[in-house]
């Protein structure tokens, strides 16, 4: 049997006679990388390809993490800009400190949940062993991959070893970080909605719940190679419309219901007052930076280079491709087309529907991307465009309806842009991609509208809304959710403002004194 490896138009033939299956502990540890059990050739060419694949993947995720960091920078700018002068530093610290808070929780438990919970557990199997993600495992530290198992002796009598933990040793940290940055994003989505009245401690606890527990369980179920929702429901959400955005947006909605609006947000007749941002430029620049970070977000949702091996019924040709998290093939070219067309449609729709309001124009761009994300690995750019139009239009209408009807004060429109757009996008993908296989593996359900609808209910409502509603209710019950009314009125940075004005007055007095000396001289 000849395995043909096609790359850049040239074909390299590798005889499978000289190949052997590597049964190393890296592969045994988890099924996620079981496809990476390479046909190991004695030829150095293949070893170099393996090395290139491994190091390229490592570097690729490392770069995506750097780009995704911009999402958090953008969220901080955006939120601080939206807040009033009297609350700006508190708003900044509340959001910035979710970085360390979510990071430790994600290191301790979140990463393990992703691998261990793919079967539910209890739906398609039990808890999966995922020792490489346990917070006390050697592979969660500086590790060079060895020593492998001894497989025999070579001609010179030296021990031959498998590659052991080489894969996880190279990929664990960067892959963990890519997921962690999604976690920060979920926390930031909550953060913007609740500004100027939530206690930071309560917010960080909620951020841990969403950023390190609920969203990552959702990802294990519906955004992994063997997740039970993929198997049973054919759930497809390639760039995390619902898994990140829908879930976090509905989590924010649950918190807002208990938290209540900012003082003065609604008139006595129930109509909303506008609370103007203290710095519109920061808001807009923040949104532009979030757009930039989304390139990293999209890239991080892919597996950058993967050997697509011959499958049953295929001609026996292997190739290399980028894949989605489900190991279905896609290209960076495809997602670039679709991301930009969805952004375009979102901005146009936001501009049109709001009569040129900057907030809705830029938020519309983001909402457009989020709506189309579920199927952007497969859509045509025109499809991504019109899906984005529908998502942003619906989100805009829903936002104002919910605001007026239920007196929900979402300071940055997070529920609309993330919650509604993400959820609508996941459901629309069910209609657009109806009948597509959800996975390269046999026996997995195909993509259907009801599978996607069930996915929305499980993710946005079951994992997003319900847990946050319960925890926020408890925090409210014990009086540790919202800041006292007097402090809210005076402003969270009141002490600082008073201190600053005293310093300015002292400085002005000193300058006047200096001026008298100068004039006297």
């Amino acid at each position, binding site marked *: 049997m000849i395995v043909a490896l096609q790359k850049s138009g040239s074909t390299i033939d590798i005889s499978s006679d000289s190949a052997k299956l590597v049964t190393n502990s890296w592969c045994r540890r988890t099924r996620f990388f079981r496809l990476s059990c390479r046909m190991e050739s004695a030829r150095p060419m293949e070893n170099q390809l393996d090395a290139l694949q491994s190091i390229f993947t490592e570097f690729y995720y490392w770069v995506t993490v750097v780009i995704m960091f911009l999402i958090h920078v953008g969220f901080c700018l955006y939120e601080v800009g939206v807040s009033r002068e009297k609350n700006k530093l508190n708003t900044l610290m509340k959001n910035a400190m979710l970085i360390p808070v979510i990071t430790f929780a994600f290191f301790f438990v979140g990463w393990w949940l992703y691998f261990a919970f793919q079967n539910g557990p209890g739906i398609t199997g039990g808890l999966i062993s995922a020792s490489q993600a346990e917070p006390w495992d*050697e592979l969660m530290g500086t590790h060079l991959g060895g020593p492998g198992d001894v497989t025999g002796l070579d001609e010179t009598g030296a021990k031959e070893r498998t590659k052991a933990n080489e894969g996880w040793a190279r990929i664990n940290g960067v892959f963990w970080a890519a997921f962690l940055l999604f976690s920060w994003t979920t926390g930031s989505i909550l953060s913007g909605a609740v500004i100027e009245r939530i206690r930071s401690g309560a917010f960080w606890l909620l951020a841990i719940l969403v950023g390190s527990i609920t969203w990552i369980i959702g990802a294990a179920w519906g955004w992994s190679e063997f997740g039970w929702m993929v198997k049973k429901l054919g759930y497809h959400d390639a760039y995390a419309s619902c898994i990140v955005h829908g879930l976090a947006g509905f989590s924010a909605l649950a918190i807002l219901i208990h938290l209540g609006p900012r003082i003065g947000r609604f008139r006595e007749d129930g109509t909303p007052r506008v609370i103007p941002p203290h710095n519109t430029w920061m808001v807009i620049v923040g949104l532009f930076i979030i757009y930039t970070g989304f390139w990293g977000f999209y890239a991080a949702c892919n597996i950058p280079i993967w050997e697509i091996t011959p499958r049953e019924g295929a001609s026996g040709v292997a190739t290399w491709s980028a894949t989605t998290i489900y190991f279905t093939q896609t290209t960076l070219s495809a997602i670039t087309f679709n991301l930009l067309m969805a952004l375009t449609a979102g901005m146009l729709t936001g501009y049109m529907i709001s009569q040129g309001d900057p907030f809705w124009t830029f938020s519309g761009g983001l909402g457009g991307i989020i709506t189309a994300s579920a199927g952007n690995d497969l859509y045509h750019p025109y499809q991504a465009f019109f899906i984005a139009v529908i998502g942003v239009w619906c989100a805009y209408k829903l936002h104002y309806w919910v605001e007026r009807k239920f007196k929900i004060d979402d300071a940055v429109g997070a529920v609309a842009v993330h919650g509604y757009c993400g959820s609508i996008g996941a459901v629309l993908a069910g209609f657009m991609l109806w009948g597509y296989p959800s996975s390269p593996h046999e026996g997995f359900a195909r993509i259907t509208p009801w599978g996607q609808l069930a996915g929305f209910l499980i993710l946005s409502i079951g994992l997003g809304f319900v847990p946050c509603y319960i925890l926020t209710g408890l925090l409210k019950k014990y009086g540790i959710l919202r800041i006292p009314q007097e402090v809210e009125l005076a402003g969270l940075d009141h002490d600082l403002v008073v201190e600053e004005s005293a310093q300015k007055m002292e400085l002005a007095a000193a300058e006047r004194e200096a001026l008298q000396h100068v004039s006297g001289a």
Partner: protein
Amino acid sequence: MWESILGSVILASVPVKDWRVDAETFGPVYPWIGTEFWMFAACLVFCIYFMIWKFISEHKKYDARARELNSDNGLSDALAIHAPEDITKRKSRETDRE
């Protein structure tokens, strides 16, 4: 004596004795291999302490500030700092000056 005892304990935990051996033999290379669980436990305790400290200190801070704002004219003074100046009043003042 203490120096030699401490030195031998630390040296015993060093996983890399020589870099000039086959690369495939290197696994974890950080010091104190085998103590990962205890390091995890210490880190967990620190992080839980941080969260508890935050809840308690925040509660105290807001209680004190609310009391302060409720005393005398605390709240009205505080609101006056942030209240935007009424443009119509400013204009009328300017007209009066003219």
